């Protein structure tokens, strides 16, 4: 398992953990039944508060990515690829919605926004 915590990032630490574990699951680096370190152990290893780790585990559990057996610890839950795909789409939609609202605030027309988006898409190095 890889976890890289950026202490100067504006993204809360628990969110960084959640995102990276999700990513690991998605890339199949973290397989079903893989045991996660205990809350205290991860807190020790990452040098962060145990409550932060607990918050991350709770979030992952409520979204169905891990399951916790009382007294035994947390494990990676069986993944449903469809669910993961939907999850990502939902997240993307939310981000885009935020951009739409911002564009509205800045008085940018639909056409301008579309042109801007296409331009960025064209110049983006993400798909090269």
């Amino acid at each position, binding site marked *: 398992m890889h976890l890289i915590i950026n202490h*100067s990032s*504006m993204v*809360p*630490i*628990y*969110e960084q953990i959640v995102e990276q574990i999700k990513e690991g699951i998605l890339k199949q680096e973290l397989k079903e039944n893989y045991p996660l370190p*205990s809350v*205290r*152990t991860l*807190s*020790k290893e990452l*040098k*962060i*508060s*145990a*409550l*932060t780790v607990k*918050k991350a585990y709770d979030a992952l559990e409520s979204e169905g990515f891990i399951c916790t057996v009382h007294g035994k610890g947390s494990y990676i839950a069986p993944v449903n690829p469809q669910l993961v795909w939907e999850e990502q789409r939902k997240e993307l939609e939310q981000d885009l919605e935020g951009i739409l609202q911002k564009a509205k605030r800045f008085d940018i027309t639909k056409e301008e926004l579309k042109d801007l988006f296409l331009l960025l898409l064209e110049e983006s190095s993400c798909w090269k």
Partner: protein
Amino acid sequence: MLEVKEVQKRYGTFELECSLTILDGQITGLIGQNGAGKSTLFKAILDLITLDSGSIQIFGKEHHELSGKEKEKLGVVLSDSGFSAYLTVRDIIAILKNMYSNFDLSYFQKQMQRFQLPYDQKIKEFSTGMKAKLKVLIALSHHAKLLILDEPTAGLDVIARDEILDLLRDYMEDENDASILISSHIAEDLESLCDDLYMIHEGKMIFHEDTDVLLSDYAILKMSEEQFKKLDTQYILKACKEAYSYACLTNQKQYYMENEPGITIEKGTIDAVITMMIRGYSL
């Protein structure tokens, strides 16, 4: 684990007046300037000074009613305390064996090895770092349930501090449901170790928050005077005028990130929060 309820203690013009709770399995940090009352509070908890009013409970019992056996479940580091400097570690081991029924020799030896501490050298010949490590080690040597550590890292360099914090982290991993109350004026130490934090100033608790919440939701907002006048202040805790700008402390970073795109937002750190809590004014 530990509950300090409305404790009051007056020394001349100084007055300690505070409450604090430490839950099972948690590391609680106490932060404050020199003379803020940290050590007085530690002494009060350990029943080394009498209280003017209020109560302190440890393991669910009044702190002055703890039996010797129950006191063995405490591990303590105080700033000006320790064994005679003319003793060696070998002498101290003999004392600890007789003092604590739960003294764990193999743990103690393992950590002695880890820190490369000598058995037969007098403590007065130890370096500051060695003395500090030994003090913490003694507090951890007998499977204490509650560790009360007053400035265990004071005066140490960054590596030695980190080694002591790692020792505490290992301890928390191995001991189920042990709790720690630790004070320091080095915010970074507490930030990376503690689950929640209390801030004491002039004898009073001025702030209590989970470290996680502090680091994720608190922020310092910086802005011009015009921006300050128009600012939505519902989540502003403190404000402070600086040379060419205004600074505000918020506990709702997300709100301002979304609604005030023009202002500069810095992540909250313990140091920034303390400074604002003490120097800033309420709106």
